[in-house]
């Protein structure tokens, strides 16, 4: 086996991680905005949905790419992972269906049905977010049974929606103005402490639940090499808190900073997670090399990826540029 063939599964693990991170950040703010809907006035709801309307469909496609790479590149692992996560996957899909169709139904159905579709919108967003948190928790604990593993999954099932709520609030700080923007600052402040507590608890619990993670984290010199990840996370969270305490700092030109800081925290958390899990696709059970497809198939996909992913990133950036600035009413025509 050539060294390139040996590297191929690792490249695809990286791509899968990248797609999943893109999904969590991009659809994370969509789901967060969706969950905040019940707290907004009727007019504000329209602006909130308008702020994510042009993006959500493409955002959600990163999930399809992520699970697609799991199916394509790691056929052996996908059987294990998706069979173990069968129920939460189904619940997440139902949540995504509810959220996705509500986007269109809420503006096309009769006016007196609009509140119902708004409720379906937020309920779907919450269901999808909680199911994703649960799946992440089960995945990190390698689908172990027992009270410790289940409570850990429960902890993440609560923390991930909380982080989406914070991300969604920061998105609204960036994309809206006036009273709604002030509200969004309050929402972000509301979610800050629960989120920090959640991240702290997960950071303590992960090495307890997983011996492999414990070994990875607390050995020298890796411990020192890893230190920048938690330290940068703390710095970003601290900066975010300072900004959110004084709303006037984020209402103007620097309205994008809170969102960028939270995205930074997501990236750091993903980096830490990736370091903890590598080279396993299913922790302690399947490595990338055991789970991967044939090098021939992977090469074909890699060519496609090398051409299309830069193009996708390019036109995604273009779409964000077209809809830059504060959200406006969405009109066809």
């Amino acid at each position: 086996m050539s060294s390139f063939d040996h590297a191929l599964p690792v490249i695809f693990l990286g791509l899968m991680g990248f797609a999943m991170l893109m999904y969590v950040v991009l659809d994370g703010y969509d789901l967060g905005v969706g969950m905040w809907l019940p707290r907004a006035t009727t007019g504000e709801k329209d602006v909130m949905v308008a702020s994510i309307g042009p993006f959500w469909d493409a955002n959600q496609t990163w999930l399809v790419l992520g699970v697609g790479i799991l199916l394509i590149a790691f056929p052996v692992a996908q059987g294990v992972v998706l069979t173990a996560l069968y129920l939460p996957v189904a619940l997440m899909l139902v949540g995504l269906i509810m959220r996705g169709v509500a986007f269109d139904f809420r503006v096309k159905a009769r006016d007196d049905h609009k509140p119902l579709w708004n409720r379906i919108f937020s309920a779907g967003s919450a269901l999808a977010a909680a199911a994703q948190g649960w799946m992440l928790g089960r995945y990190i604990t390698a689908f172990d049974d027992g009270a410790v593993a289940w409570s850990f999954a429960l902890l993440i099932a609560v923390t991930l929606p909380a982080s989406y709520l914070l991300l969604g609030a920061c998105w609204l700080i960036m994309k809206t103005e006036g009273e709604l923007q002030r509200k969004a600052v309050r929402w972000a402040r509301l979610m800050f402490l629960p989120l920090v507590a959640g991240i702290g608890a997960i950071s303590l619990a992960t090495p307890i639940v997983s011996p492999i993670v414990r070994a990875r984290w607390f050995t020298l010199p890796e411990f020192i090499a890893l230190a920048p990840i938690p330290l940068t996370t703390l710095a970003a969270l601290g900066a975010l808190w300072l900004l959110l305490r004084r709303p006037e700092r984020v209402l103007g030109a620097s309205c994008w900073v809170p969102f960028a800081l939270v995205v930074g925290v997501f990236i750091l958390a993903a980096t830490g997670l990736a370091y903890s899990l590598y080279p396993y696709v299913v922790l302690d059970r399947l490595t990338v090399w055991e789970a991967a497809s044939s090098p021939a198939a992977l090469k074909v996909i890699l060519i496609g990826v090398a051409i299309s992913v830069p193009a996708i990133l390019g036109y995604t950036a273009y779409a964000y540029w077209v809809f830059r600035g504060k959200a406006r009413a969405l009109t066809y025509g």
Partner: protein
Amino acid sequence: MESLDGLLLARIQFAANITFHILFPAITIALAWALVGLRLAWLRTRRTEWLHAYLFWTKVFALSFALGVVSGVTMSFQFGTNWPGFMERAGNIAGPLLGFEVLTAFFLEATFLGIMLFGHNRVSERVHLLATVLVAFGTTMSAFWIIALNSWMQTPVGHTVIDGVFHVTSWLDVIFSPSMPYRLGHMLLASFLTAAFLMIGVSAWQLLRGKDNLATRPVLKAGLAAAAVLVPVQIVVGDLHGLNTLEHQPAKVAAMEALWTTQRGAPLVLFGWPDAATRSNLYTIEIPRGAAWILTHDPDGLLQGIDAFPDAHPPVAPVFWSFRVMVGTGVLMLCAAWLGAWQVWRQRRRPRLELPRWLLAGLAAMTFSGWVATVAGWYVSEIGRQPFLVQGALRTAEAASAVPPAQIAQTLAIYLIVYVLLIVAYISVLRYMAEKPIEDPGTSPAKRGARPVAAGAE
């Protein structure tokens, strides 16, 4: 027995999802191109009716697209949750084809959909038109890749099997497998007919209810013209597809024709009750030598029956009936399209098209005829491939998951409730939109941009 129940439940669940899913691509693939046409008509003639038609059908497109997307995401997961053995065994082939679908189609259509729907005030007319074309191109590419995969599963070539795992020897052969051009042509035409009859039916409904607007008659005429030309083309393509199936999947054709025994000069069973227990048809109406004549173009031609494929043939009754529903609906579509087109042609000198009410009622009743024919056609194709997942090479039972049947049953119940509610919601909202007077969109983009934010997110 338990594993059989699990297998059956997994099949019902996947079938429920894929049936629900195909309803919406069947509309959006062609409707996207129809929108390109409507937009071009407006830009070239600057006649308000085309703008109104474009705006109304853009809303229908957005709604249908959203339903297609969410059920498509569900499907991408169900490949793994319901058929883990499929990716383990055929992943080297199915993986890249599905991957290319995501990379070249899903992102493209999803990203430019935002610009197509909401970008009017933000990009130039030229860029907007390009975005619309890219969405249409994306939906068609998506159909291309998924049809390529499905066709390979029906008529697998271009691979070798090593230790039970499929490996590609020629990508060109895999992508353009023997049934692929026929299936792709048949499906794209099915989409154009589904969209055409939707546009015809909704317009006829508006006229019946006295809720017609500027766009109603032009759309009705264009839809009838397209359908009158495309239904006969579809019948020819469908016949070619059938002959291709006879060559590569004779067991499927035997089930379609309820032909239990291999024989010369087989009759065409118009109607009958295929009985699996006695392996014969009850209460039949037959045309002597009909099947032999249609399929081999020789009244004494030899056709293989179900008995030629012991333990490797599909269940006869569902395939037989689905095929008749598809063909029957197709015949009705031909009658409706030609009757309507003939009326339009007769009235070509009149200032205003006035169709008789009985015809309008008939056309309105045919609004979703494309759905019926498309779903029935896919049932013929997919049930007709059983008991195989990959024809002759991988059995469906071998790919099933080890998920407890109770879990599959629970999630199946949830999916079914959601899907039924969504179809009811879709049709009622479509009707509500059809009867709602069109708001004058105004003709200057600047005026629209000035609308206050809180006015609505539509």
